[in-house]
């Protein structure tokens, strides 16, 4: 088992790299063979990745996010799953290169940071905590995917508005498709984050009955949740157009990064993991 898990540290980034290269052929050369192979290849690697995470859980008897390496691998997995879902929903593969490249980057980092031993942490044995973290990671991954689509949407929007026709022009799907994929990712992220907030509140109320609402990370998460909720609501009510939603998506990602990095660095609280 140990040997298999170690070899996965080489196989997984390599597999994601190959899939990213395949998607690169789709994006840069519009290669029909690469287009046919891309989605099945990605799904196969996701299954392999799932097997690796389950193997980690079985090996250490706890949720596989106890080390930086495991957490990064979990993030890579979450982004891959969300992208595969968005791609399936939008039936559009030309943007996969950017997202799968991001997945490869996370998994590579995870493999580089991998250590043979994993500390045994009691909190990672709690199933509600595992659900909370899984949902939070899935939500953040979905928001990252949505931000990627928002960026591409704004790029194409600017090109079409100004009649400049940059490198992206002609290679990306139409604005309507980019917006739809962004909204699918945003919705998936919002639902997941809502689940994470609910399970987190339940779990925190049980373990830290007093004062958990004043934790800076929880506050930042609630702000994030509110931003995305508002963006989705205004888009649904047709008050906002694609461009505003894309900007909100990028702003939401900024809040997430703040919540993940700055809060951990500058504020103390019980939410120190991840």
């Amino acid at each position, binding site marked *: 088992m140990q040997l298999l898990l170690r070899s996965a540290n080489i196989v997984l980034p390599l597999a994601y790299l190959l899939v990213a290269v395949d998607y690169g052929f789709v994006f840069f050369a519009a290669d029909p063979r690469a287009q046919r192979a891309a989605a099945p290849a990605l799904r196969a690697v996701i299954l392999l990745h799932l097997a690796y995470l389950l193997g980690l859980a079985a090996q250490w008897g706890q949720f596989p996010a106890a080390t930086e390496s495991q957490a990064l691998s979990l993030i890579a997995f979450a982004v891959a799953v969300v992208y595969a879902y968005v791609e399936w929903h939008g039936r559009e593969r030309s943007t996969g290169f950017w997202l799968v490249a991001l997945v490869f980057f996370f998994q590579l980092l995870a493999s580089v940071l991998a250590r043979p031993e994993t500390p045994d942490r009691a909190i990672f044995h709690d199933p509600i905590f595992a659900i909370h973290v899984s949902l939070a990671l899935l939500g953040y991954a979905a928001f990252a995917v949505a931000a990627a689509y928002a960026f591409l949407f704004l790029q*194409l929007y600017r090109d*079409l*508005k100004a*009649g400049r*026709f940059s490198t992206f*022009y*002609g290679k*990306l799907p*139409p*604005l*309507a*498709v980019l917006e*739809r994929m962004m909204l699918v990712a945003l919705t998936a992220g919002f639902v997941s984050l809502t689940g994470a907030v609910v399970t987190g509140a339940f779990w925190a109320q049980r373990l830290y009955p007093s004062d958990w609402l004043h934790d800076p990370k929880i506050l930042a998460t609630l702000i994030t949740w509110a931003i995305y909720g508002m963006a989705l609501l205004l*888009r649904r009510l*047709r*008050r*906002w*157009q*694609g*461009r505003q939603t894309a900007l909100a998506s990028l702003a939401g990602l900024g809040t997430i990064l703040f919540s993940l990095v700055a809060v951990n660095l500058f504020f103390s609280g019980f939410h120190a993991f991840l």
Partner: protein
Amino acid sequence: MPDSPHPGSARDSLDPAPRGAGDPGPAGATAAADRAGAGASEAGARARGPAANGAAGPSLLLLGIDFHTVPIELRERVTYGHEEAEKMLVHLLARSAIAEALLLSTCNRTEVVLQPRDEEQAYRAALDLVFLSRAPEIERPGLLYVKRNQGAARHLLAVACGLESMVLGESEILGQVKQAAALAEAVGAAGPVLRRLLRSALAAGRRARQETAISAGAVSLGYAVIELARNIFRDLDDCRVLLIGAGEIARAVARNLAERGARQLTVVNRTPERARQFQEEFPQAAALPFAERFGAIREADLVIASTGADEPVITRRQLAEAMAARPSRPLLVVDLGVPRNVEPEAGRIENVFLHSIDSLDHLIQRNLKRRKDEMPRVQEIVDEEIAHFHGWYRGMQAEPLIARLQKQAERIRRQELSQALPHFPESSHEHLDRLTRSLVRKILHHPSDGLRGREGTEHLPRLDLVRELFRLDDTDPDAGETHEASERAAGEGSATAADADEKPPAE
């Protein structure tokens, strides 16, 4: 003689004297090679290798005029419709000097490709029948181009790839080459050589469009509008199109849009009569009075304005009001009017993508540049397909000899076996027969492959050497039959030249 445009009077004989490679001339292929740039030419020359002098290929002759060399007034007189082309091919084949013929006639070019038995006479016949009979002015120097052997083959492939087209990389020409091939086949004018050449030309044309971006991107106004729409909307089928103005430009764009699936057309025009005429051509289109254009904008996804009005017919304020009243859907506005029909400031409105004729031109120029950048890659494809064509031709030349060689070996085998068998028990006869067959097959395998597929101009001397070494002279009673059989086999292999996309046998 290197391939060159015919620099003198067209009635001059086909001068066998060598001409300098730098002969000036207006020939399309020469111009195209110049357009491809020195890099492409050098790459092509390298890829062509030792066979570049044409000695390794079959004898071919191409005479033609195109938009580079001849004005439309003259071209239209030398354009052949389907039935005229059919008759012309029959006339050409009636000349003993011509073994095979192909006539390609489009609005931009008329070319005849021949497999001559007598080059000089074939040239004169084609010149008189195809060109001078319809436009004696073509006799003037510099109008007609003539290409021979490999130059002729390369030119036909370049034409099929769209390298010689007025709009670089346009796709229609491939269909026209296909039609010309089908006609030559139907008339019986395409023999093994032209049939195989056409197969290479069609394969090159298809590969150029599949493997390179030579046909990518819009290079006309109508398709530029479609390209912009496809960058904004998921599907043209669901796109509601509003045409403000019903003139010729609007019709041309509407035609392109309808071809690409746009079904929901609405036209508004100052004169109802013109709108009705528009509806006659596009029965699916709805017509509205000009004053109702703002109401129509609220429903539209794509607005095409092409009126001759001196003042803008859509102002920023009017468009902003229309946008405020519609759901948050993007609106593509293409202003084809000069002076402009839409206030330029309207482009600042959120979710409005306003493009003028200049912006479309910018897009077209960008796409044209991308196509030009692809020319070296297309030249490489042409080189590869030419190499396949020549490989096939070398194989075809070698087949009769190989057949004779095999026949001779088989005769010797049978002779020796019949003498030897009485000395062996009967039970081993079948075994000995198999053994000797296998021996002969294995001994001849590599020499046969070598005769079929070697590159270079030493190919023909090698055939002669083999003929001499094994005494396979032409008086062999089976030789004629074998040669015909091999030609038949070569011909049958490409019976569907117009549709086939197979590679020739591996060299």
